[in-house]
């Protein structure tokens, strides 16, 4: 996710993380794995993108995190959506839908 406008990048990254977390609590590695998997590898987060974003979202109260022990005994920090984060998801989805729709109208991507 480099070389793209930072505002656009941040917005899309927030949407991606909120979307995967809407299915349930996940730890950082699983979040990045699911995003890559569900987008067919088109979106990939490196640590330098993912964790500052997660910490920022935690600061803003969109997600909460707590340490949990995996069956393997390894401790992981699991993130889950807060009520506030859940409330942000729908407007963010709507904005992005509007954005892509506008872009489609402009470029005719749908008809290509």
């Amino acid at each position: 996710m480099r070389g793209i406008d930072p505002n656009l990048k941040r917005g899309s990254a927030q949407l991606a993380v909120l979307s995967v977390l809407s299915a349930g609590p996940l730890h950082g590695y699983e979040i990045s794995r699911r995003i890559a998997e569900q987008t067919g590898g088109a979106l990939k987060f490196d640590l330098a993108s993912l964790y500052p974003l997660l910490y920022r979202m935690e600061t803003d109260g969109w997600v909460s995190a707590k340490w949990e022990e995996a069956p393997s005994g390894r401790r992981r920090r699991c993130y889950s959506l807060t009520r506030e984060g859940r409330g942000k998801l729908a407007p963010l989805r709507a904005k992005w839908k509007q954005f892509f729709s506008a872009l489609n109208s402009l470029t005719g991507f749908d008809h290509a």
Partner: protein
Amino acid sequence: MRDFEKQVSEKLGRLGVHDRDEIVRELSGHLQERHDELRAAGVGEDEAATAALAQVGDWRRLQKGIMRAKEGNMTARAKTILIPGAFAFFVAALSERILWQLGYGPAYLYQYYVLQLRVQHLPIYANALPLLLCLMFAGALAAALSRAAGGSVRQRLMAAETPAACALGLFLFVLFVSMPIEMYMRHRLSQPFPSLLSWLYLLTVFFASSVALPAVALLLGALPFMREKRESQSPVAVA
């Protein structure tokens, strides 16, 4: 097992955030997961470690990003809790002072009871209305400022209740510091001692008038600002 924790710790440097150790543990756990997954897929040890570390991207960008996110923590707290809370406290303290000068101030219950050693009702609530209205305004002001700064409902509530939290601190100080000293001095000077019932009554009235009632007034003032503002429907800003 690879010691990613040491590597992450070295690469991140001092970082300057209070939960640095937790961050190091979390990031190294991420790298370890990737490493183990690759090893399970039959990739060699060194190759797996290199591939796991490649997931970091840019260490400097990671370090800066974390610091910005955590600095934002302090800034956000200041904007959404501390500054609105300080405004509320200032308004509450100033209005109490002014009203007290005008003859609407709360009685000095603690001194009254301890010095007079009597239990009787004081007309404390009769004069309280102007102060409670000022406290409602202080609560509303704090919640509005916090909401304008993007504060969550919890942060708005914390900002609005700052004056009550300060009063609670004062109450606890009186309870655990001033009163034991007072009791000790009375014991030393062989002065008459109020009954337990008097103390309980005093504390209840003191708590109700200086903590509970103001807290309710502040909350009532803040309530209209607890609802979220409607999200703007403006398009996504690309530029």
